[in-house]
């Protein structure tokens, strides 16, 4: 029990379960998945699809945070990516041709890669503090996206491109397949090679890492590049979802959601040890939370308050202090007076709403 409570994924998973239970109570068929037109349909599938872009952004963010950095520009990069892809499609005579779509995707990803390289350059070569270095692109990036779209929302019809956002593959949403697939590959690479450890060393003690021969600068540069690339991919999924490039709103505040996902997943913003499986759960928690607001029928006026309370409860439960308390409460012969898992009342409260 103690071991379970101490597991780093315990609280994020518990939060996810509580949210799902709350939804199921409000809407008993919430977890039902039906087959419609040969693909799966239902709230859980929707959640997987809406998680997809956030997951990609959070993936890059986790790696950046591991090196003690942060990337505020991801939202702007999302916007740029969508703008480039859709503008290219819109300007081409045949937006339905796979070649055009591939070119659009390629162009968008290439530009986002360059944006990532730019962030990496500012941080690792010029030594500018990450938050301010990426703030520059956060501001200017949306301007670039608007420049590309001329300030309008660019829309286009392109079957193959639309598949990215709302298509299905083997019954599953293509967006989810892509995001979870990329996530799995990156997680595999990071953990099966020495990359993870070297990133962590860089994040914990850059000076010691340098003296140990770790190419800290190159690594730092790489993670920002990766973050740009993943944000670009997320931008494609987002724009394909509605088939519109909205330079102003695409990916707005996604950096905060992504950081939150990383933190809920148990990775400290101070860098070092990171936890990709936690990030995955964190992203799912956030996507589910958004759905929960609708399903529980929470008034828009109290939605931010509700979100805040959930975040506060989850983070407090996850806090080292609470964990210790809970762990020692379960370890001891359990005196009945001890306010057992202090969490319980709060979590049922969430359910009750």
């Amino acid at each position, binding site marked *: 029990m103690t071991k379970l409570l101490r597991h780093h994924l315990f609280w994020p998973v518990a939060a996810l379960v509580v949210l799902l239970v709350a939804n199921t109570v409000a809407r008993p068929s919430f977890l039902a998945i039906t087959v419609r037109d040969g693909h799966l349909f239902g709230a859980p599938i929707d959640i997987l699809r809406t998680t997809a872009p956030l997951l990609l952004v959070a993936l890059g963010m986790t790696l950046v945070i591991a090196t003690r950095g942060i990337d505020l520009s991801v939202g702007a990069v999302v916007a740029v990516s969508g703008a480039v892809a859709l503008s290219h499609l819109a300007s081409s005579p045949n937006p339905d041709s796979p070649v055009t779509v591939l070119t659009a995707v390629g162009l968008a990803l290439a530009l986002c890669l360059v944006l990532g390289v730019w962030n990496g350059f500012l941080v690792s070569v010029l030594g500018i503090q990450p938050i301010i270095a990426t703030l520059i692109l956060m501001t200017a990036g949306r301007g670039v996206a608007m420049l590309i779209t001329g300030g309008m929302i660019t829309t286009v019809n392109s079957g193959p491109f639309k598949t990215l956002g709302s298509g299905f593959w083997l019954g599953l949403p293509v967006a989810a397949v892509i995001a979870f697939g990329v996530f799995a590959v990156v997680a595999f690479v990071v953990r099966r090679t020495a990359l993870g450890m070297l990133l962590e060393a860089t994040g914990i003690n850059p000076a010691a890492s340098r003296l140990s021969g770790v190419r800290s600068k190159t690594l730092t540069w790489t993670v920002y590049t990766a973050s740009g690339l993943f944000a670009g991919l997320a931008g494609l999924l987002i724009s394909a979802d509605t088939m519109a490039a909205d330079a102003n709103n695409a990916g707005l505040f996604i950096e905060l959601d992504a950081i939150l996902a990383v933190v809920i997943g148990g990775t400290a913003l101070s860098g070092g040890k990171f936890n990709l499986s936690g990030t995955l759960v964190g992203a799912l928690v956030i996507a589910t939370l958004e759905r929960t607001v609708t399903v529980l029928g929470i008034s828009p*006026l109290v939605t931010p308050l509700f979100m805040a309370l959930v975040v506060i409860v989850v983070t407090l439960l996850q806090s080292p202090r609470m964990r210790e308390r809970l762990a020692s409460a379960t370890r001891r012969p359990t005196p009945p007076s001890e306010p057992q898992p202090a969490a319980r009342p709060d979590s049922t409260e969430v359910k009750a709403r």
Partner: protein
Amino acid sequence: MTTSAPARASRALKIPTRLDRRYLPVLGTFVVLALMLILGGSRYENFLSPAVVSNLFINNAHLIVLAVGMTFVILTGGIDLSVGSVLALSTVVTATLLQAGLPPAVVIPLAVGAGTVIGLAHGVMVHYFQVQPFVATLAGMFFARGLCFVIAPESIAIDNASFVGLASWVQIFGGWRMSSGVLIALVVVGAGFLVLHFTRFGRTVYAIGGGEQSALLMGLPVARTKVLAYVVSGTCAGLGGLLFAMYSRSGYSLTGVAMELDAIAAVVIGGTLLTGGTGFVLGSVLGVLVLGLIQTIITFEGTLSSWWTKIVIGVLLLIFVVLQRALSLRKT
């Protein structure tokens, strides 16, 4: 073993008389700010007028106060993402209560106090529950914003006579103007400076940023100081809200979205390290002026489309940060 006696003097460290390295980033900011003013002055008519400089302060008084509070938190190695929302909350509380007929003498402490209470909650979360500052204050940001909507989703005008009287107090010396908001902001800057440099609390703020573990082992009151830093920031945000309410004579729940980024950017541009321990309140004030000046330049340029505005802000920020970095690196 106790062999001894090489001259003590040989071990004395020669302390260079050159400027303390800690001041370099601030100095860098100052130099680039001056350059910007000069360039602006040569490019635009009326740019270097007292009116423009006075407006720079008048328009940014609330941001100066936020930046002072933010400096405390960042010096401890933390961050406060809630200030924009808390500022909005304070404007909403001010406007709602004034509209309900309460006198300013009651309303003002309540509005500022709302910030203090939220700051205290942050401090407790950060210190006692060891929640990461970014997350604790992000939750606070959602919370304050949510509370705004619950109190008043629509914007509320303030027409309480004595409040308006206070808000519209202005002193004019030649072309220079000084509003009550600016006066309050300057007092806050002065107080922030004195507290940071002449109290144990202030020095402990620096010590915590230099190494929390070390500060703890030095027997400094880490817990109290850390919590207090967030209280200071929360209070400043509440006060900033009050200034904003005075400035705009209204309260609105959507005010100050992303203003925390401006405050953080100002502090960082002012030479404070986000890792904590190094930086100055006066630097943060310079940082605010830089951001304000960028905005002024944009307006004076007068032909930028919406997107070029964003791009130019980004580029100016970049030029600024890189120049400042170059200036502060040159001598290390």
